[in-house]
């Protein structure tokens, strides 16, 4: 079948976004990326330099665009959980959670306490995972190679815990609509307990390596400044804002999944540079460890899936003995469950900032539209402002402190 393009092509402007030649003499255009190692993914930045000073920086994104939002419209509601993992591949469980919460809001089903607490624990693990990767690679960029090995050592333990719970190290899809994918495995308390008791001393080790390290201090302090007003105007969220003195964390301001029952602090720093973002993330790791300890000690008993037979697959044994369960099983497996028509916007505090899913249902068994407001996309928009009139050597530290993931940006 042949399609006509005429009506589509007419409105595309033939303007190239990025200037090919410098705007003034004595200036130089430098292409950074898309395969530059310190861009952590496939990001291209076109810098206009005067000497070593950056005059303008133009990020060019889209290299990792995989059409996930289009794909959502082809899958049924529960199948689409697997797509959310692949958006931000360092904070998969945060993406699982926000999608599940959004759809559960439309379905208006109640999630049992045990599932909610397990969700909190797992998303905090994914925050640790993400911050550890950030700290390791960021320190590596600035020249501290040991940090990388230290951080990835702990990250490996976290990935093993993910594997124990879900069977997968990275693409967990563990948080499903209606509860969890599997019952928490036997003996998880010992494994999580052992890790979380040792973890604070590991964070001490990182701080010992970095806090009084003159190279680290010189490369981070006073670097990467961007004013709070600019950040709010440009859509930056998360640790970037808390590093500039704004006490705003969605876990506190709009609690979800029983976060209000946990006791933790929101770390805030005021110096608004790479150093303060490092301090915020280090303290967030300590707070996450506290949350995980509370979840471990106070984990409620009971069901790990909602009492919603039209959404949750029935117990295997019941399916074989009860007619009703068999019918539900058949319906869910063959066509998927239907979600009442409506629209919701659900947001959570991910490691990088605000993840918001805007989910529209037309009453069928497939999402009509899912839009992901991802923190990396919003944060990256502030990059040109942040790099303006700074030195090119500082740009590596500055863009690393934003902690973006290109899969999250491009979707």
């Amino acid at each position, binding site marked *: 079948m042949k399609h006509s393009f005429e009506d589509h092509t007419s409105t595309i402007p033939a303007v190239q976004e990025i200037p090919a030649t410098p705007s003034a003499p004595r200036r130089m255009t430098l292409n950074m990326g898309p395969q530059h190692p310190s861009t952590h993914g496939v990001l291209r930045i076109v810098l206009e330099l005067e000497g070593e000073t950056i005059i303008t920086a133009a990020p060019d994104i*889209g290299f990792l665009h995989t059409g996930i939002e289009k794909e959502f419209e082809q899958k049924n509601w529960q199948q689409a959980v697997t797509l959310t993992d692949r958006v931000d591949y360092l904070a998969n469980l945060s993406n699982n959670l926000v999608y599940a919460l959004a759809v559960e809001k439309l379905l208006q089903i109640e999630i049992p306490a045990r599932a909610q607490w397990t969700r909190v624990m797992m998303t905090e693990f994914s925050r640790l995972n993400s911050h550890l990767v950030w700290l390791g690679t960021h320190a590596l960029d600035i020249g501290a190679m040991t940090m990388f090995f230290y951080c990835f050592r702990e990250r490996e333990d976290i990935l093993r815990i993910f594997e124990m719970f879900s069977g997968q190290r990275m693409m967990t899809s563990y948080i499903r609509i209606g509860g969890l994918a599997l019952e928490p495995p036997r003996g998880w308390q010992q494994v999580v307990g052992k890790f979380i008791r040792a973890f604070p001393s590991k964070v001490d080790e990182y701080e010992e390596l970095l806090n009084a390290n003159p190279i680290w201090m010189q490369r981070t302090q006073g670097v990467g400044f961007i004013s709070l007003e600019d950040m709010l*105007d440009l859509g930056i969220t998360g640790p970037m804002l808390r590093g500039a003195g*704004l006490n705003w964390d969605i876990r506190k*301001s709009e609690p979800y999944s029983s976060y209000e029952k946990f006791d933790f602090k929101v770390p805030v720093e005021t110096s608004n540079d790479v150093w303060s973002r490092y301090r915020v993330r280090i303290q967030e790791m300590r707070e996450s460890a506290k949350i995980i300890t509370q979840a471990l000690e106070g984990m409620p008993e009971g069901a790990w899936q909602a009492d919603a037979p039209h959404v949750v697959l029935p117990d295997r044994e019941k399916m074989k003995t009860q007619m009703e369960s068999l019918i539900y099983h058949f319906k869910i497996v063959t066509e998927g469950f239907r979600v009442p028509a409506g629209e*919701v*916007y659900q947001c959570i505090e991910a490691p990088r900032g605000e993840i*918001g899913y*805007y989910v529209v249902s037309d009453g069928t068994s497939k999402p009509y539209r899912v839009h992901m*407001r991802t923190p990396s996309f919003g944060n990256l928009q502030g990059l040109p402002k942040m790099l303006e009139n700074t030195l090119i050597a500082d740009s590596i530290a500055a863009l690393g402190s934003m902690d973006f993931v290109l899969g999250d940006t491009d979707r």
Partner: protein
Amino acid sequence: MNHAGVLETREAFGETTLIVDPAQIVDLCRHLKDSEKYIRLSGITAVDLHPAEPRFEVIYHLHSIERNRRLRLKCLLSGVNPEIDSATAVWRGANWYEREVFDMFGIGFRNHPNLVRILMPIDWEGYPLRKDYPVHGYKYSYPSE
């Protein structure tokens, strides 16, 4: 909300949606930012209601940190030459979101400083998130079709 641009207010799932006259969107946004403290624009997106008419919904998610409130604005646009004023004059952060909507839905934003594709290649044909755009794109055809 006492503003001439608000046509209707809807409440659902604890969220407020204002249906807004597209001609007054920038004026309303400025009013919400200056007087109602919605200093953050959380995002802009669109929904294609093909084949219904008006075909497109442009959605704005606003957030006020101070009041801890969220608000959704919705503008309905016709499928024939859809265009709306850009909100970049109110929030600079609207820039990339509007480019994404343009890229995916082909909705034009008047007075936008740099309205070019952002995620798709610059010479891409068609608008992928429109409902009449096939999943595998236009460029490839399969024997079964």
